């Protein structure tokens, strides 16, 4: 089987493509919509918005989530905001500028047509969310307020304090629950996808594990939508919630879906530093804080004085110094790398030396504590709870951490993967952010995919194809159940001496050191040797107590770690093959004299798409060439 990549980008000028495409997509007669079953996996912004919108149209929708309630998907934790090209502040924004900033911010590794469409629908998202009762911040006249975010010189970010993801998700969740109440959506929480069912080359169903009973349940449908988020937890420590995992995407990959750019992992500059070996996850401090916080380290190496004792003249506000026009609001990849440089120079702060300061003293002096509390109160409280330090009085200590996956399942313009009938939305797909995502663009993309893109493209898929009858009695479901049951059984039978978590930690440490903020040929090759060894050890020595026919959290973790141990190899291989620096992917061999990422457009202006070739065989590399007609690639500069 050889994979064919057809991005199905419509012809014509970039600003007309989506209109043209929407008109050309066939429609499903309203009376026929109820004959189509849609399976939506994941209930974050992408999944909840897609499921609600499709049910509103009249399709039969089943929704699956790992959590005990769809409202708990990890979109809930997004803090800072959501971008849109409303240009309410009259500061020069437009659809074209949002498009431009996103393509440039992604270091010219995203597909222009998709990004333009994202910018186009961004304004409708704000309208929709406001109508749902999302309590965005407002000005005294009652109109919506905006703030600025990294990588942009306009204020286009809408926000609900530091809880924007929560409020947007609860809006989408409300829309979803409305459909559930009407019986148009069937909700299946505490279910984890364990197999994708492909019949005659077309995705026709899934098998999920009921996490309470351990039972494997088969569900047939006419389309499967994976809205299962990113793979950041492969690194063990990340800002992702515990249940975020690569499982569903990885199963799809092994069934023939291309996986694009797995090495594009965003390392967010402002997270609370790790405090010890026991740490289970890292906590983000929103990028919005860089609107008012100033990032600095001592000028002198090894200066261990308390921050308040270091006089102004002995501080290095290095982002303001290096990037005067963007200052503290440079994009995330640039800010993370700069922090790493300071720390590598021995100028890190705090007990471990693995942190830089984010200081609000000037902003508090200028605006008053009440104003700062109004803007960021919940973030300051969160920091205080975690560290027992009061950021109104002492600067925050921050450090970069794995945060977001720009890579993901390859999708065409319809958000369909290389498996017909299998769609992928939100963070789980690869499409819009290139090699680096700008702040406040993840929420925009998740909701764009779910509210305003998939309702059209899934309809086109249904109307344009014939579907032989496939229900849960089809032998493909028995085979898929047997395969999933086999994996569970194998894990339970090892009865070794190490916990699943211990393997996950070992893998995470290796990835962070060898494939983290800076990568080089030697380190990547070393990781490629170590990962199979850890994997082998895992299958020989892991201990998973209890049974498969029960609520078994150790088993859940073991299944996910088994996936990480396979997926990580692809991630590292992708990083090795991309012998250029771009966005979040920094190859030490490819940098400018002042240590900025140096792209190689002649050789790497493409998305790398990996095809599974079978167990033990190296994956097959494909390329989707990227054409830039509307944004001319240049060396990205924020100076």
């Amino acid at each position, binding site marked *: 089987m050889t994979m064919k990549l057809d991005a199905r980008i419509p012809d014509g000028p970039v600003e007309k493509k989506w209109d043209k495409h929407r008109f050309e997509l066939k429609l499903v007669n309203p009376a026929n919509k109820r004959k189509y079953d849609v399976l939506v996996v994941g209930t974050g912004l992408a999944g909840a*918005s897609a499921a609600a*919108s499709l049910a509103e149209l009249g399709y039969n929708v089943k929704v699956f989530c790992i*959590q*005990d*309630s769809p*409202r708990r998907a*990890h979109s*809930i*934790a997004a803090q800072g905001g959501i971008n849109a090209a*409303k240009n309410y502040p009259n500061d020069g924004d437009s659809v074209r500028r949002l498009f431009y900033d996103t393509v440039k911010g992604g270091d010219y590794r995203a597909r222009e047509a998709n990004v333009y469409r994202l910018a186009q629908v961004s*304004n*409708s998202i704000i309208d*929709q*969310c*406001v*109508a*749902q*009762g999302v*309590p965005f911040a*407002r*000005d005294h*006249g*009652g109109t919506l307020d905006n703030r600025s975010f990294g990588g942009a010189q306009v204020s286009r970010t809408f926000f*609900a*304090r530091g*809880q924007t993801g*929560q*409020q947007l998700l609860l809006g989408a969740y*409300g*829309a979803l*629950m*409305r459909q559930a*109440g009407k019986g148009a959506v069937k*909700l299946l*929480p505490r279910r984890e996808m364990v197999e994708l069912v492909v019949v005659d080359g077309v995705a026709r169903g899934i098998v999920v594990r009921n996490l309470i009973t351990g039972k494997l349940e088969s569900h047939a449908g006419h389309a499967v939508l994976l809205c299962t988020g990113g793979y950041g937890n492969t690194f063990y420590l990340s800002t992702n*919630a515990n*249940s975020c995992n690569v499982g569903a995407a990885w199963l799809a990959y092994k069934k023939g879906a291309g996986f694009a750019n797995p090495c594009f992992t965003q390392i967010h500059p402002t997270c609370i530093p790790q*405090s*010890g070996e*026991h*740490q*289970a*996850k890292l*906590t983000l401090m929103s990028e919005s804080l860089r609107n008012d916080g100033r990032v600095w380290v001592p000028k002198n190496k090894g200066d261990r004085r308390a921050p308040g004792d270091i006089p102004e003249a002995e501080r290095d506000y290095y982002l303001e110094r290096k990037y005067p026009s963007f200052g503290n609001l440079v994009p995330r990849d640039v800010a993370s790398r700069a922090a790493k440089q300071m720390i590598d120079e021995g100028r890190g702060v705090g*007990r471990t030396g693995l942190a830089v300061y984010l200081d609000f003293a000037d902003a508090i002096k200028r605006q008053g504590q009440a104003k700062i509390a109004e803007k960021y109160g*919940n973030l300051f409280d*969160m920091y205080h*709870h*975690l560290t*027992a*330090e009061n950021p109104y009085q002492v600067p925050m200590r921050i450090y970069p951490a794995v945060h977001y996956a720009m890579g993901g399942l390859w999708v065409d313009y319809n958000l369909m993967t290389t498996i017909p009938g299998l769609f992928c939305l939100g963070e789980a797909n690869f499409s819009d952010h290139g090699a680096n995502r700008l702040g406040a663009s993840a929420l925009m993309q998740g909701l764009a995919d779910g509210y305003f893109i998939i*309702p059209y493209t899934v309809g086109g898929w249904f109307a344009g194809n014939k579907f032989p009858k496939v229900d849960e009695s089809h032998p493909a479901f028995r085979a898929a159940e047997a395969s999933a049951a086999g994996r569970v059984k194998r894990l339970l039978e090892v009865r070794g*001496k*190490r916990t699943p*978590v*211990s393997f996950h930690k070992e893998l995470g440490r290796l990835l962070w050191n060898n494939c983290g903020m800076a990568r080089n040929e030697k380190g990547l090759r070393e990781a490629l040797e170590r990962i199979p060894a850890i994997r082998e050890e895992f299958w020989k020595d892991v*201990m998973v*107590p209890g049974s498969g026919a029960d*609520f078994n959290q*150790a088993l859940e973790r073991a299944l996910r770690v088994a996936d990480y141990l396979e997926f990580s190899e692809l991630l590292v291989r992708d990083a090795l093959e991309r012998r250029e620096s771009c966005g979040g992917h920094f190859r030490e061999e490819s940098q400018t004299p002042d240590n900025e990422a140096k792209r190689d457009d002649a050789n790497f202006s493409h998305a790398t798409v990996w095809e599974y070739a079978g167990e033990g065989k190296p994956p097959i590399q494909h390329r989707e060439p990227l054409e830039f007609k509307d944004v001319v690639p240049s060396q990205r500069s924020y100076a």
Partner: protein
Amino acid sequence: MSQETTMDVTLRVWRQKGPDQPGRFETYAAKGVTPDMSFFEALDMVNEELVVKGEEPIAFDHDCREGICGTCALTINGQPHGPDRGATGCQLHLRAYKHGDTITVEPFRARAFPVIKDLCVDRSALDRIMAAGGFISVNTGSAPEANSIPVPKAKAEAAMDSAACIGCGACAASCPNASAMLFVSAKISQFALLPQGRAERERRALAMQKQMDREGFGNCSNEAECEATCPKDIKIANIARLNREFLRAVFCSNEKHPETDGQEE
């Protein structure tokens, strides 16, 4: 942060194999923990030791570990989410305890939250209340331009205060009547305060209240335990607003009290 110091604490943990089986407290030693560890990281540590021995770890729900997803549902020394005001259980750190302390851990207790296993409970009742009316009925694509609906800043801020609810259910777990009125009133208030929510305020109040009763939650008798426990500082003034909205719907509107689940169109 200067805690190289370690300490030992004892965890008394509720273990229960399944919904229909009896539960009991088991005691575990958490040795060599540090004050900057979270309480959940101490549970992780105990679980790692259990797994190595081939024993089943303590089942507990947790996800974001930063106080926003609402997944964790532990009663710690008798208090849902533990002793810290305005924080969830996952935000609790061991600096709240000292060497030699015994910490008792149970699931959230409420009639409408049956235990699934150990410390995990079923809170789907809260989802069913939301399905009954916790939304504004607006289909995708039919929204007017966002700035065509001005909302006074103070109203928007007050709506946000109510909307901050994370749906954890601690209000019900702390209430002597196991009432979910704080949860319901937070959503009712958010929409009652916003012009967008006005069109179906009566139907919403009736439907959510009805579903809440069906799920077996008790009534409010002004104990205010919920407000003291709420990790997001949701105020009981919301409950007063819920009562007003409910009475308004009953006496000042033509909306009928729904007799069936879900929405009648």
